[in-house]
Structures are given as C-alpha cells and as structure tokens.
C-alpha cells in the first residue's frame, strides 16, 4: 500500500467510526477531539490489523498518530519504506 491508499483506508475507518463530516490529511486528530481515549485503542488496532504491523511501546508517540499524514508515515516507516519515496 502506498501513502495515498493508507490515508484512504484510515479516513474511511475514522469516518465510519466517528461523527465528523470530513477529515483533512493534516487535521490534528487529537486536538480536534476525534481521537478520544475510547477511540485511540480502536484506531491503533485497526492500524495493526489493516497494515500488518505491531505498535510497540517505543511507537507510543503522539506524532506517530497525530494526523492521517502522520499515521501513514508511521505505517510506511514500520514497513521499512521511506515515506518520502512513497509520497
């Protein structure tokens, strides 16, 4: 999956789970309140399952999950792909 496909999958999951009309690529998921404590772990599980990665303790950084772009970059890094190359 490339960055665009990852963002699309993330966007569809979030819009299916949370009542927001739209979601920009760089919209802050935490400051906007989209990702609350109830949703954070569900989103993480979706990321792990969909992109076949394991989120570990060292990955627990807000910057890895702050936006669609940030999460897509994190997924690509975990899969050993340079984000810039896939962009």
């Amino acid at each position, binding site marked *: 999956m490339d960055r665009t496909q990852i963002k699309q999958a993330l966007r569809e*999951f979030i819009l*299916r*789970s*949370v*009542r927001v009309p739209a979601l920009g690529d760089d919209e802050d998921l935490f400051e906007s309140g989209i990702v609350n*404590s*109830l949703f*954070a*772990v*569900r*989103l*993480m*599980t*979706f990321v*792990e*399952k969909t992109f076949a990665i394991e989120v*570990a*303790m060292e990955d*627990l*950084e*807000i910057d890895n999950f702050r936006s669609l772009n940030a999460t897509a970059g994190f997924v690509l890094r975990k899969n050993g792909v340079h984000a810039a190359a896939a962009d």
Partner: protein
Amino acid sequence: MQPLPTEVHKARHEEFKAFAAVLVEPAAGEWDREQRLPDAVLAALGERGYLGTTIAPEYGGRGWDAVTFGLLSEALGRTSCALSGVLTVQAMVAMALQKWGSAAQRSRWLPLLASGQAIGAIALTEPGGGSDLHALATNFAAGAGERLRLNGRKKWISCAQFADVFLVFGKLDGQPAACLVPRDTAGLSVEPITDLMGFRAAGLAELDFRDAEVPAANLVGKPGFALSHVAPVALQYGRLSTAWSAIGLLRGCFEESVAYAASRKIGGGSVGELGMIRSLIARMGTDLEAGALLCHAACGAQDERLPDGFEKALMAKYFASRAAVRAAADAVQIRGASGCHGSSLVSRCYRDAKIMEIIEGTTQVHEDMLGRLFVEQRRDG
C-alpha cells in the same frame, strides 16, 4: 473464521469443567465463608498453566486464544467468581505487559506470571475516584537516580491480599502513567478489605503508597498513554473474563433451577410444571444462550484483532453481568427458603452476581460508553 466454539474449544472446556468439579465446586463455599483462597488451589491453577493461558509460549505461557481463556473463566465462574477473578486480574496485568512492557519487563515478569510463581493485580481504582479514571490522584514523581517515588492510595483492588506485583496507574508530571510495583517495595502497605457482600474470597485490599520507590524502568508504556492505550488492553481482558465468569454463574443458576424444578414436588406435580416457574427458567436459559453468543463474538473479534473487539467486549460484559444478576435472583426465588441459606450455591451466586455488574466498569459506565459508540457510528442516510 470457524463457528465458535470449535471442537478444540469444546474439549478444553470439558477439561476446565472437570478441574472445577474436583478442585473448585466442593470447596468454593468454604472459601467464601473464610474469605480467602487457599494457596493450594492457586498452585493447582499455576501447575496446569491456567494462570498464563493467553501469555505467549516464548514466555512460558500457553498461548491459547481469547475464546479458550474465556471458557476457563466460565468453568471456574460456575462455582467461584472469586477464583475466576484471579484469572481476570492475572490476564489484565500479563496482557498489558505483553503488549506495552519493555523487553526487560516482559522477560522478567511474564514467565513468573505464566507459571503462577507470581500473581499480578491491577491498581487502578482510587478511594475518591471510582469509575472516573481521569481523576487519578496517585502521584509518580521523578526521584534521584532514575527512580520513581509513588504517593497515593488505591482501593477495592482484587487479589491484592496475595498479589506479588501491582500494575499501578497514576500521574507523572500530570500525564497518566503506569508502572510495576513489586509487593515488597518499601513504602507500600496492603490493607485487606473484608466483609464484602460477594466476591468474598477474591482477596481485595487497599494499597497505601508513601514515598514508595521503584526504578523508572518499571514504567509500562510511556507517560501520557496509560489510560488511552495501556489500561484498555488490560480492561479488555478484564471484561472478557468477567463476562464469561458471569455466564458461568448464570449456568450454575440455570442448572440448579432446572434440577430443582424437576425434583421439587408441589400439589401432586413438580415445581417445574408451574407456568410462572417455567417463565423464570425460560428467561434464564435464553439469557445463557444469548450471553454466551455475545462472549464468543467478543473473544472471536479479539482473536482476529478486530477494532470492534472492544465494543463487543463491552456488550458481552454489560449483558452477561446483568443477566447473571437476574438469573441469581430468580434462582433464589425458585428454591424459596432453601435458596436463602448460606449452604446453597444460588445464595452465593446472588451475592456474587452483583459484584460482576460492578467490577471492570459498572453497568452505567458500560451504558455510557456503548451509547456514545452507537451514536457516533450512526451514519446519516
């Protein structure tokens, strides 16, 4: 996914029920009266690997799926929710550690938890906080030499009377944090809580931390993620186990009621021929089937690592614990006076069932969370 339970699950469930029939059922009433679990039964759980069913084999665990873990909770919950409570908190600590612990924490603690050489407990609830986890007042302060200094109190902590290690939640620089605190830590005192209505053998205690120091390396996960990521993994297993325990309790009430209704004579017939009694048993049996289906769905989703596993676990625990309360009340009603005596299983179930509705999140907390989830997921059009 295969329909649940599979033949392997069914065979393991029979094994668990046989264990319970020999080592739990004859003694559970005594444990309840004495308000303690004997070391021997905890050792028996450990010897069979029952305290580490979900821990990965690389750490000495069984590596069984959530369904199997649930069926073990069900088999023990049939006659002793206090004993299944040990499975609950053990899995909560172990799975939080397996997911978010450092390599050093995992290699030190998981083999001990898997074998039962160590019992874990979750120290989340506080005297003034109750269900409001964000109101954590326990303070973690950075001490000298890469150490953390803990101050605060925890209350209603299951298995704390005999636990060897606690996964403690508090705040570090205002951020929710979790850390492992061995029982022998200086500055930690454990005060047993007795005379609970139910769950009396589960070894509840209050914990008092007064400048209790542990290495900073004992932090589990990173500060800021304790309530959003660490606690939910623990609570997921807590809810699955509690839901299944409630189903076990419900099964006990159902089986006792059916047997009693068939054998108890009244007016030339049996109690079971009375329509009003049949109504109670019908509801019990249907709740048992529905609750088990919800539990299987939740465990299946957990095993498939599906995001909706969390809401399915909420639904399973919400439904099963409420159904257990109804069933226990009806089971006592069916038995009449004999059901009110302390020697009857259903009288203990009556007291224990209410606890199932409170631990790992009250019914009202579940309604709030599920209601919010359902509203958020409603799509226009």
